[in-house]
């Protein structure tokens, strides 16, 4: 989880996690040069179709958060119950904008 929050991607143990992280950060920062470099790195190591699939997921998750935050949908009960400790550890409960 700390890797996802950007603290230590390497420690996440995700195969090619740093490549993935650089790509998502570059796209979300709208940094064209950085995106081009990250894109090429993924193409070189994982192939073009992997790069396309990664770009697609990043694009989709530029939608879901905006939809959730614009309409104020809450966490489902089951997810809320399953993430009590994690939300406390990450301080997420302070981010209730309602």
């Amino acid at each position, binding site marked *: 989880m700390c890797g996802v929050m950007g603290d230590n991607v390497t420690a996440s143990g995700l195969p090619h996690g740093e490549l993935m992280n650089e790509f998502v950060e570059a796209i979300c920062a709208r940094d064209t040069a950085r995106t081009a470099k990250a894109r090429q790195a993924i193409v070189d190591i994982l192939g073009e179709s992997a790069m396309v699939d990664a770009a697609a997921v990043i694009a989709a998750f*530029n939608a879901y958060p905006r939809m*959730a935050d614009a309409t104020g949908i*809450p966490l489902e009960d089951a997810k809320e119950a399953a993430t009590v400790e994690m939300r406390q550890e990450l301080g997420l409960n302070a981010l209730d904008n309602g």
Partner: protein
Amino acid sequence: MAQAYDTAPVALRDDLRDALNRAHERLAQPGSWLDGPQRLAVAAEARHAWDCALCQARKDSISPYAVTGDHASLGQLPTAWVDAIHRVVTDSGRLSARWYHETLDGGMVEDELIEVISVTVQAVVIDCFTAGIGMDRPASPTASPGQADRSHRTEAKTGTGWAATIAPEDAKPDFADFYDNDSHFYIRRSLTLVPDETRRLWDLLNHLYMEDPRTIELDGMDRDISRAQMEFLAARASALLGCYY
């Protein structure tokens, strides 16, 4: 005639290419509450929002309400629409119930707001993917004639958020199939006040990500990254937007 994503600089899955082509064209077609020129104007304003000085100052401030002023807009849409679009694009992690209700008080019909949010999101998503694969943004399509029918769905209710939505148990026969695969997650329900627009949006999202996220692995799915890598990208993009849903 070749469509916009037929000429992508990299090979795209057929289903993904077709979904992107549909989404691109639909930006110019009459929706449920907005006509074609309005939808194109919303998409254009969404793309323009990134360069808005007020949005940048608000983004840098401790609260979006600490900075006042006027948005740098293209001048095609009412003030309340422009503010809604800019906030969704540039600072979605700090949207609030206050923002939602002030937007409606500013003169927007709730159904219009939902379609504006959807079109805004689609413009962001299309651009995000296009930039990601290193493709120039395709030229905007030409607006199609025709009117939106502006038909309000009375079965929609508030209760799971700020927006009225259609619950699975309240869905009428023409919309019940939207919940067919038991994907009753609130995110799927979030924009259902405008059912046809919701279908248009999810027709794109299903191909970018996946139709049923309860899938544990990617059996039968044509993907070249792992489920773990997909979920990492998903969570990381959400965190960068300040969304902790």
